[in-house]
C-alpha cells in the first residue's frame, strides 16, 4: 500500500499531465471552435457560475437525478428482495430486466419523447437505464445472505418485518453502497443525455444543446467540466455521509 500523501501526489500528477496534453493539443489545433484551451474553458465556466440561469439549470438537473434515483432505489429494494427470495418472481422479472439492460438508451429517449412530456420523459429514461443496475446488486445481496443466519430465522420463526429490518437490509448494505456509487454517476449521465434530446425548460442538457446550437464549443466544454465537478461532489458527499452514518444501523 502507498501512503495517503503519495496517493495524492499521483492523482495530482496525472491530472496535471492531462491538462498539459489538453493545452498542447489546443495549441496545435489552434481553433477554439474545434478544441478550446483549458484556460478559456475555465474562464467561461467562471462566467457561467456568476449567472443565475446556470444555477437554475444545475438545480433542476440535480432534482431530477435525486428524484429518479430515490425512486429507483425503492423499486430496486422491493423487487430485488422479492425476486431474491422467490425464484418464481426472479424468473418472471428476468425477461423484463434483460430488455431493460439491452435496450438502446437513445431509442428509449426518442420513444419516451413521443409518449410523455419532456419532464416525465427524462425521469422515465433514467429509471429504465439505472434500475437494472440497482436491482442486480440487491438480488446479488440477497443471494449472498448468510445461510446459517437464514436457517436461524427459519427455525426460530422470526417474523418477516423483523427479518427484513434487522437481518436482510443490514446485510444488503455493502451491495447497496456499491450500487449507489455506480448508479449515481450513471443517473447523472443518462439524465443529461435525455435532457439534451428532450429539451425541458431548464436543465444542464438544455444548456448543452443551446451552446451547441450557437457553435460555442468552449461553452460545451465548460458545462462538461461543471458536470464532472458536480459528479465528483456527489461522490464526496456520499462518502462523507457513509463515513458519518454508515457504521450505525
Amino acid at each position, binding site marked *: 500500500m502507498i501512503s495517503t500523501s503519495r496517493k495524492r501526489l499521483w492523482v495530482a500528477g496525472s491530472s496535471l499531465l492531462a491538462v498539459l496534453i489538453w493545452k498542447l493539443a489546443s495549441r496545435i489545433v489552434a481553433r477554439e471552435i474545434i478544441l478550446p484551451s483549458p484556460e478559456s474553458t475555465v474562464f467561461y465556466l467562471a462566467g457561467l457560475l456568476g449567472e443565475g440561469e446556470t444555477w437554475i439549470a444545475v438545480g433542476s438537473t440535480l432534482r431530477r437525478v435525486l428524484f429518479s434515483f430515490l425512486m429507483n432505489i425503492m423499486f430496486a429494494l422491493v423487487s430485488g428482495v422479492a425476486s431474491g427470495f422467490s425464484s418464481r418472481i426472479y424468473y418472471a422479472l428476468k425477461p423484463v430486466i434483460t430488455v431493460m439492460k439491452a435496450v438502446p438508451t437513445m431509442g428509449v429517449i426518442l420513444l419516451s419523447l413521443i409518449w410523455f412530456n419532456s419532464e416525465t420523459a427524462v425521469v422515465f429514461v433514467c429509471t429504465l437505464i439505472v434500475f437494472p443496475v440497482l436491482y442486480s446488486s440487491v438480488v446479488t445481496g440477497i443471494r449472498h445472505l448468510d445461510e446459517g443466519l437464514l*436457517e436461524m430465522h427459519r427455525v426460530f420463526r422470526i417474523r418477516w418485518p423483523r427479518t427484513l429490518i434487522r437481518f436482510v437490509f443490514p446485510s444488503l448494505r455493502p451491495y447497496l453502497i456499491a450500487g449507489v456509487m455506480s448508479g449515481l454517476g450513471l443517473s447523472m449521465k443518462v439524465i443529461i443525455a435525455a435532457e439534451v434530446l428532450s429539451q425541458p425548460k431548464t436543465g444542464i442538457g438544455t444548456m448543452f444543446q443551446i451552446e451547441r446550437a450557437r457553435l460555442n464549443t468552449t461553452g460545451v466544454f465548460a458545462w462538461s467540466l461543471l458536470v464532472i465537478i458536480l459528479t465528483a461532489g456527489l461522490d464526496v458527499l456520499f462518502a462523507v455521509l457513509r463515513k458519518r452514518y454508515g457504521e450505525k444501523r
Partner: protein
Amino acid sequence: MMPVIRLEGVGKRFGETVLFEKLDFSVPAGSVTCLLGPSGCGKTTMLNLMAGLTPPDTGKADIRGRFSFVFQDARLLPWETVRENALYAMDSHIHKQERLERADTMLNLLELKNAVHLLPGQISGGMARRTALARALLAPHEALLLDEPLSSLDPDMRTRIIELLPEMLKGKAVVLVTHDYVTAAALSDRVFRLTLPPVVIRSVDNNDLEGTLDQIERIDRERSTPD
C-alpha cells in the same frame, strides 16, 4: 402425556448409508433427552430431522408449537450487540422493560454481564455460544434443540453452566446432542445412544440403546464381560 417432539417411522439415507430406518422417537414436555454417540452416527441429522431442516425420506417428523435451536456455531447477527442478539427470538408483545430485565438476568447467569454492549466480533467463541444459548433460552418456546451447546466452553464454565441449566430447562421438551458423558449424566432424564451406521433398524432392541445413563452403562459392562 402428548409428546412435544415426535419422529414417526422416520427413514433417512445419504447415498448408500442408511442412517435411520423406521425410527420412532418422542420427547414429552418437561423431559430432557440426550443423544450420545461417536461423530458420524447421525446425532445432528436426527436433530435436523426434528427441526424440519432436513426432510425425512419416509415417515414424519414434527414439533408441536415453536421451538428454539442452539446450533453448533453461534449464528449471531454481527451488527447487533450481545444483548440485542439474546433478545432476538423473544416476542415483541412482552413489555420492553420486562424483556430487558429478563435478558439481563439470563446474561448475568451465563456470565456475560460485561459483554452486553459488545458486538459478536468483539467477543470470544465461548461467549458467542453462550449468547446463542441465552437467545434460545429466552424465547418462550415449548421445545428446545441443542447441538453440543457446551462444546466450546472451558471446563470451569461448563461445570457452572451445567449446574444452572436444569432450572432453565424446566417444563420444556429438550433434546441435547453431546458426546460428553458428564453433560449427559447431569442434564438428561433419558439417553438415546446411537451407534455408527450401517444399522438397519434403529431401536432400543438393536445396537442403539435407550434408557437412563446408569442403565446404559450397566448394559455396556454386561456386554463387555464374556459369558
